[in-house]
């Protein structure tokens, strides 16, 4: 049986999620490896989501937002654009190939493009092989006791 990667898609509500919807209504087929989570804007994507996804067993993470200049929230996608290279550097530090993370612009009318992006990214992750965090001695989370609550700040 060939390797079927698990890919997390984080899609912005206004462009990419609608674009993915359009791909669906247009009966375009894309690999079922992608499982998507909706956020209001690609600017909402906390790098923590990406690390959490890899920790939870994802082999790749695809983030889609509106095209530059087209953001529903004026400039959230630019904020995302700035955070991704930083996250990639951090991923490298953890020994995770930064090519497992990708940022793409998909507009609400680009169902076809969404299909192409997902298909291509899935193939790329497939060729990269499974993310072997387990082999390095890490057990996917279950035992973890949720996420740390924010600590009261020092100025309080």
């Amino acid at each position, binding site marked *: 049986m060939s390797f079927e990667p*698990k890919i*997390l898609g984080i899609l912005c509500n206004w462009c990419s999620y609608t674009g993915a919807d359009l791909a669906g209504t247009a009966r375009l087929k894309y690999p079922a490896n992608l*499982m998507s*989570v909706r*956020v*209001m*804007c690609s*600017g*909402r*994507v*906390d*790098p*923590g*989501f990406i690390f*959490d*996804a890899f920790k*939870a*067993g*994802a082999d790749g993470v695809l983030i889609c937002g509106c*095209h530059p*200049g*087209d*953001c*529903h*929230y*004026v*400039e*959230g996608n630019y*904020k995302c654009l700035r*955070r991704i290279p930083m996250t990639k550097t951090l991923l490298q530090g953890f020994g995770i190939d930064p090519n497992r993370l990708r940022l793409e612009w998909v507009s609400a009318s680009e169902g076809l493009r969404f299909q192409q992006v997902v298909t291509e990214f899935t193939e790329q992750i497939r060729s990269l092989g499974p993310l072997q965090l387990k082999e390095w001695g890490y057990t*996917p*989370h*279950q035992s973890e006791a949720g*996420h740390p609550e*924010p*600590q*009261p*700040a*020092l*100025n*309080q």
Partner: protein
Amino acid sequence: MSKVSIEIDGKPIEVESGTYLLEAVRDLGVDIPAPCRYPYLKPKPSCRLCSVEISEGADSVSKIVTSCNYPVTAGLKVLTNSEKAIEARRAALNNLIGRTAPTTLLGDLAAQFKIDNPKWGHKYVTCIFCKLCIRVCDELVGAKALSFKKVTDQDTTSIKLDPEKCILCGACAFVCPTNHIKLEEAQDRPVVHSEMSLGPNAAISLTFRQAVPNVPRIHTEQCIHFTMGGCQVCSEVCPKDAIHYDQPDQIEEIEVGTVIMATGFQDFDPTPMKQFGYGKYPNVISAIEFEQMNNAAGSTGGKILLENGAEPRSIAILHCIGSRDDNYHKYCSRVCCMYALKFAHLAKEKTDAEVYQLYIDMRAFGKGYEEFYHRLLDEGVNVIRGKGAEVVPVSYKRSAEGGLIVRCEDTLIGKFREIPVDMVILCTALEARSDAAAVGRKFNISTGADGWYIEAHPKLAPVSTTTEGIFLAGVCQGAKDIPDAVAQGSAAAAQAMRLLNKGEVLMDAAYAEIQEQFCSGCRICNGLCPYNAISYEEAKKVSYINSALCKACGTCVAGCPTGAIKARHFTDEQIYAQIEGILT
């Protein structure tokens, strides 16, 4: 003002004291020449053509005075046409004739005073030394650029201009009674009234004919009073005393609940498309220029004319200039096909010209539009399916003659064609205003990739924006024709009224809030918010989100280093749970 009674040519009349005799005499309908008099300058007799005979009191000796600067006094007796007065005027006229070259003004006066063989004293200097120009420049304008100078080789005095001081207002040429001073383009400095031939271009004008309120405005950068400090003639002539120079520009702040953006569009500039020769060949014009030409109040009075004033024999109308073009705008401007057909109709109606339409697709989509297209076909308009590729002069050697050739491919017959025409009209694209993005930022609404404002939803909320209470109307949201713009404007007004009537705004349940106990007061989020919804509270040393302004994008949530910001309905816990849920 007290009145005094005087007697002019035996008729007793009452005039206000302090008026000059010339005005009193002219009020009676007696014509006295006074070329050196200009009503907005203090009278200063130099031509002496306004001489009259007066006598004060019953038995005083009569004398000759210049009426233009003689103030009336009680009991004054004036004779305007006595022999003595006429003789004085004739002498003054002879004196002037003896110093200048022939002019219409003096020629007519010479005929009037029966001087049969005027002995003109000069061959070409037509100045009559009235000094009106110098006085206007000194007293009214305040530029002090003119002076008399002795011209030795011509044996006369003439006006000398100081080009450093001259502001090219043209007042001297305007007041000159003999047209001795002419207004010409001075090197590369534009003359203020350079567009005189196209219509009045004074410093006071109506902004445009349908302006509301329809009152004239003073353009301070051209007004002599504002640039030089003098003049004020307009306030003198205004019968309603409506002109106040000291009125400052006022900035009024109006509190509103809703805003309708109807900022419109700008015309695409076809100059960069060198193949059409716009700006190079005078008879290649843009659609708006053709429209101005057709306006009865326009530069040609509604006639369709070529650069040389002749009627065109053939006109080509090129569609899709800058629109449906990968190099400029990809979208269709929607209005061009129909106005191009209207142009063809106007051209057929007003001229005998042959009209060619060069189109990609004829988009006659609206009510009655297709019928209009067929009517035009019946009128004999030539329609060619194929975009105009190039406009070239008939012959490069004779390009000044104006004949043009339009090259295109007629895709219906599959032939390359060259059409000789006199005039080419470019149907330019509608494009978003260059300042649309900057204006949009002020209202927190965004522009799309092609520059138009983005509506909240293309189908379900076509007049709303992402900012509550701000609506879109007309072309600022995308190219549309007048019926569509009116429909959208009405919809926007209705939406605005709905909010105003309700008096309150329904908010989305999703918004971000700061949990104060976790906020470190770092203020990173303040700069991240595109809606300026986050402010810093000095007293508590924490940031605060105004939930009415927040649009719930969550950018601040992802940026908060302490995790203090919570996006309602998209909390970190929810998203982490989703991620982990779908991956395990």
